[in-house]
C-alpha cells in the first residue's frame, strides 16, 4: 500500500477547492492510472434493473474507449459501473469513504479484489478508519475531482450522487444525467438535474464525444432481431418472434454469452454493443 502526498496528486484532483492531504492507493494499477482521462459513473444503491443495466453498459463502453471509470464501490449503480469496466478489460478506480484497507460494503469484497488485480482502489483515509455517514459526501468530492465528467445514472430526490454532481459543477466539470421515467422516484434526482441544465445522456458515446475521445470500434455482430424486441419477458419475446420456448431460450443464452443481453427479474434487456 502506498500513498500520494498532496503535491503528487493528479492535476485535476489537485485543482479542486479542497483537495485531500494525501491519497492512499491499493491495487496493481499504478498511480499513473489516475492521470488518465476519467469519468465518474455514480447513482443509487437501490437501483432499478434499468439503472443497473445502464451503469453496466456505460462502464463497459467508457472503459473500452480507454477512459478510466471512477465510482464508489457501493451497491447498485457503483458496483455495476465497476463491473462493466472490468468486463471490457478496461480500468476502473474505486474511491472509498473509509480506511484504504477496508472492503466496504463487505458484499463487494470480491469485486474489490478484482479491481485490485488490474486497477486501483483509493481513499483519503488511512487504514482502519470507520465508514461513517459523513465521510461519504467527502469521498464524493474526490470522485468528482478525479474526473473530467460525472454521469448520474439513477438518483432519488436527496441522493448522495447529487452531491457528487454538485461538486463536479462547482469545479466546472461536465455533468451528465441519464433520463428516467418521470413517474419513478428513482429518477426524480436525475430528472431534476436535467431540468437544471445537466446534459442528457443517451449512450456512452455522448460523453466520449464531449471529451473528444473516439469510441471503441463497434462490434461487428449487431442487429439480432430479438434485441429489437427488448426489453421484454421471455414469453413476450416468444410470442412476438414466433419462436418456441426452447429455441428462444437457446438464442437468448447465446446472446447473453456474447454480452448483448442480460436478464433481471425475468425481463431481458438489450445491452448496447
Amino acid at each position, binding site marked *: 500500500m502506498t500513498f500520494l502526498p498532496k503535491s503528487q496528486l493528479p492535476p485535476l484532483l489537485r485543482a479542486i477547492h479542497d483537495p485531500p492531504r494525501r491519497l492512499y492507493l491499493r491495487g496493481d494499477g499504478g498511480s499513473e492510472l489516475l492521470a488518465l482521462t476519467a469519468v465518474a459513473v455514480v447513482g443509487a444503491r437501490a437501483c432499478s434493473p434499468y439503472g443497473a443495466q445502464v451503469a453496466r453498459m456505460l462502464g463497459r463502453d467508457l472503459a473500452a474507449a480507454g477512459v478510466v471509470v471512477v465510482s464508489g464501490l457501493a451497491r*447498485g449503480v457503483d458496483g455495476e459501473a465497476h463491473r462493466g469496466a472490468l468486463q471490457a478489460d478496461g480500468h476502473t478506480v474505486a474511491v472509498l469513504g473509509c480506511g484504504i484497507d477496508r472492503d466496504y460494503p463487505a458484499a463487494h469484497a470480491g469485486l474489490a479484489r478484482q479491481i485490485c488485480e488490474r486497477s486501483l482502489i483509493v481513499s483519503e483515509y488511512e487504514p482502519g478508519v470507520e465508514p461513517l455517514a459523513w465521510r461519504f459526501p467527502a469521498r464524493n468530492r474526490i470522485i468528482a475531482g478525479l474526473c473530467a465528467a460525472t454521469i448520474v445514472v439513477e438518483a432519488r430526490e436527496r441522493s448522495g450522487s447529487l452531491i457528487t454532481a454538485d461538486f463536479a459543477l462547482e469545479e466546472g466539470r461536465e455533468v451528465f444525467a441519464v433520463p428516467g421515467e418521470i413517474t419513478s422516484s428513482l429518477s426524480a434526482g436525475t430528472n431534476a438535474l436535467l431540468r437544471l441544465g445537466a446534459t442528457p445522456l443517451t449512450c456512452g458515446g455522448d460523453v466520449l464525444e464531449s471529451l473528444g475521445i473516439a469510441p471503441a470500434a463497434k462490434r461487428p455482430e449487431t442487429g439480432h432481431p430479438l434485441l429489437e424486441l427488448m426489453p421484454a*419477458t*421471455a414469453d413476450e419475446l416468444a410470442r412476438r418472434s414466433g419462436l418456441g420456448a*426452447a429455441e428462444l431460450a437457446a438464442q*437468448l443464452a447465446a446472446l*447473453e*454469452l456474447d454480452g448483448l443481453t442480460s436478464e433481471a427479474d425475468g*425481463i431481458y434487456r438489450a445491452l448496447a454493443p
Partner: protein
Amino acid sequence: MLARAITFALVGLEPRRVEVEAHVQSGVPAFTLVGLVDRACQEAKQRVRSGIKSSELEWPGNKSTVNLAPAELKKEGSGFDLPIALALLAASGQVPRDRLAEHASYGELALDGRLRRVGGVFAVAEGARRAGLERLVCALDACAEAALAGVEPVGVRHLAEAVAYLRGELEPPEWVPSNGRARRPPLDLADVRGQERARRALELAAAGRHNMLFGGPPGIGKTMLARRLPGILPPLDDDVALEVTRIHSVAGLVDPEHPLIGYPPFRAPHHSASTAAIVGGGPKLRPGEASLAHHGVLLHDELAEFQRPALEALRQPLEDGEILVARAAGSVRFPARFQLIGTMNLCPCGARGDPGAQCSCSAQRITRYRDRLSRALLDRFDIVVTVPRPRASELQAAGGEGSDAVRTRVLSARLRLADAPPARTPAADVLLTRAVDRLRLSGRGRAKVASVARTIAALAEAGEVLPEHIAEALAYRAPPGLAT
C-alpha cells in the same frame, strides 16, 4: 390358560413381529397390559373390555395379563386392540388357540366391538407374509390394502365376526378386490395460459427429474404451474408404487378403495411446518412430508418463508434419497427420493418482476430475504425460472397444450435418458467451457447445466447433446443475484 396372537409393530416403515400373550388365571379380577406399550396402546384395555362385552362374549372375569413381546420394542398406536382381544378370548377358551396362531391380526376396536382401520396395514401385511402367515384378520375396509402385500385378508366388520370366523362358524364377508389405482389429481396444464417458458421448464423438470425453483411476483401462477407437475409425470412402476404405498399406509393416508399409489404423490406442506413434519421423526417416528413425496413432488410454496432448519434438513434427502432419523434407541431410514419444487417472490414486498408495481425494498432487505436460503440449498435447484407478470393480452391467449400430450413426451424422454443418455458433441463441450468462463459457473453449476442439457437433448429426441441444447440449459441457471 395361555394363548397367543401374532401381530406386527412398526419401527419406522419396518414391521417387527410381536406376540401378544394372554394369560388368564384365578385370582382377584384385574387386567394388566405390559410390554412397553404407549398411551394409545395402554388405552386398549378399555376398548378391548367394552368391545368383548358388546360382542356378547364373555369377559374373562379373572386375573388376566397381556404381554406384548418382545418387551424391549416400543409399541405404539391402537392396532393392537384386535390381537389383544383375540388372545384374551383364546386364553379363556372362546376361540380355538391353534387357529388363532395361524393368523396375524391388526385393527382398532370401537367400544361397540366394531373394527376400525388404522394406518400401516400394508406394512403389517408385509410382515405377516414374511413371517410365513398367510392370513391377516383386519377391518373390512383395510382388505384391499392388505391384499396388495400378498397376504389373504380376512376382512371383518366386528369382533363377533372375527370370533365366528376363527371358530369356523362363518366365512368372512366378501370384499371386492380393487385393482384400481388411486386417481390422478385432475389438474391439467391446459388451464395455464401463456407462460411458455415456465411450461417448458416444467416439462424439462418432469423429464429429467430436476429440482426447480419458480421466482416471480405473487399471483402470476407459480403455484398453479407447480401443482400441475404431477399430472405430466409418468405413472409409477409397480414395485415403486408398492414402496410409496407402504409409506402412505404408515401415515394412514391410503384411500381404502384404491390403496395402490400408482401415480407420483404430491405433497405441499405449509411454510410453518416443523423440521420433524418435513423430514420425519418426532416421538412416533412417522414419515415426514419429504418421505410422503417419495418418487413424487414436494412443493415448497413461498420457499423463503420456511424455517431455515426445516429447509436445511432437506439437503440430506436431496443428496442421498433417504432420511436417516437417529434416536437414542436406534435409527430409522425413511426413503425420500423426491423432486423439490420451490416458489418464491423476488423480494419481500413481492413487487419485483412486476412491471405494474414499484418495489419498495432496499437492497439490504432483498439481500436478507434471499439470504434465508442457503447457497447449498439453492445449488440443488437445477432449473431456476423467473416468471414475470404476464400482460393482459397473454391471458386472453388460448389455453396451452394439455397434460396428456406433455406426459407422452416426458415418458419417451425418460426412456431415452435411461437407455442411451446422449453425450455432448465436441462443439457442445466448447460452448460449455466458454459459458463456464464467461458466466463464472462453479463446478456444480457446470454439472447442472450439463445435466439439464442432456434432458433437453432427450426431449428433442437427439442422439447427442448439441450446442443449442447447452445454450438453452444456460437460460435456466440461477440468476447471479440468487445463487451460484
